[in-house]
């Protein structure tokens, strides 16, 4: 078969046909995978919340959002199966060494850290990537049970009380910044028992007021 000539009509028809066929194929695959992708993401978030809130798999969550300056934080108000408040789990993102460092931190009603998990990171394997275990209970930089309002959660180099990951101070700083920001957002969000109030106060002084309250 001879090749089609370069006439304007041929080129237009071929390009249009290509666009329609590929577009149709993409729409079809998207409609098939949309559901599973959503489920995967929801499951990942749910597993993360269960992990940072003490491991009870029957928790119920309500999603809230808090805006501080220009950053928006997603706050999950968590209650157990009987409706008793456990606390808040907060997603926060800071700039790590290799890119965005996304952390989910769980706080109880007093603001003590119940647990954390790293949802996404681009840190160096073998160095900054150790953050997934370093700050856990029993780790060298254990932050579990500490309260950002009472404890100075910065690296010891900056005068704080947390041991930074060896040779990864930037990652450690970014991680602790994320935890502190999460705490601020959690303190500002509605308490876990009162899930329907939307807290979107942006001013910095009200943040301080909340921190005082939490103390």
């Amino acid at each position, binding site marked *: 078969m*001879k090749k089609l000539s370069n006439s304007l009509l041929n080129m237009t028809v*071929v*390009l249009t046909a*290509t666009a329609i066929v*590929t577009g149709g194929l993409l729409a079809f695959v*998207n409609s098939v*995978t949309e559901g599973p992708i959503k489920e995967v993401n929801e499951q*990942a978030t749910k597993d993360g919340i269960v992990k940072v809130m003490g491991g009870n798999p029957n928790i119920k969550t309500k999603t809230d959002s808090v805006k501080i300056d220009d950053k928006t934080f997603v706050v999950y108000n968590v209650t157990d199966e009987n409706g008793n408040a456990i606390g808040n789990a907060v997603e926060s993102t800071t700039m790590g060494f290799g890119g965005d460092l996304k952390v989910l931190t769980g706080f109880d009603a007093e603001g003590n850290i119940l647990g954390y998990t790293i949802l996404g990171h681009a840190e160096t*394997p*073998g160095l900054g990537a150790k953050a997934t275990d370093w700050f856990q209970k029993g780790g060298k930089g254990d932050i579990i049970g500490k309260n950002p309002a009472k404890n100075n959660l910065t690296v010891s180099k900056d005068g704080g009380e947390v041991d930074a990951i060896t040779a990864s101070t930037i990652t450690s700083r970014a991680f602790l910044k994320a935890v502190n920001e999460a705490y601020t957002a959690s303190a500002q969000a509605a308490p876990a028992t009162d899930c329907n109030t939307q807290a979107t106060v942006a001013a910095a002084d009200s943040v301080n007021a909340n921190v005082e309250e939490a103390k």
Partner: protein
Amino acid sequence: MKRYIDILLNGLVKENPVFVLVLGMCPTLATTSSAINGLSMGLATCFVLICSNLVISLIKNITPDKVHIPVYICIIATFVTVLQMLLAAYVPEVNASLGIFIPLIVVNCIILGRAESFASKHGPLESIFDGIGIGLGFAFALTLLGGCREFLGTGKIFDLTVFPEDFGALMFVLPPGAFITLGFLTAIVNKIRGVKN
């Protein structure tokens, strides 16, 4: 049949995309921090290469010369997007570890290179074999590179500990290690192939 085996071996050994053609260096260097990452990236590229080679060899005669590049790119981009959606839906771990490098398969020069130099001149069956050969050659090279880096850097291969992590030279997991390892592996491959200056 012998012809197809020749095409297959051509991609795997004689024209190995990484060690011989030196194509697709960006994903080669960036994704091979561990053997499993290298393997996933290689297989993902292999899938796109087989599909795009097949479709392009089928439509090569109804594509006017002046618009063949946009048509090819459109086809390649479609397969990459399909692949990304499938990975995100059914193997989220792979999708998370390869991240941005999946969409970048679109601009991997191996794929357009094979479309131009092979699929647009050969029949569908031969093009599929070329896709399998080159794709597996790429996957093999990436796995080898990733395996060497993971072993030297962390003392593990496919997450199995060979020696304690503390003795590893971490540099091999970092970008400079990619260049050094690739250089040595290419030299070794050239030695085996008997290339002289």
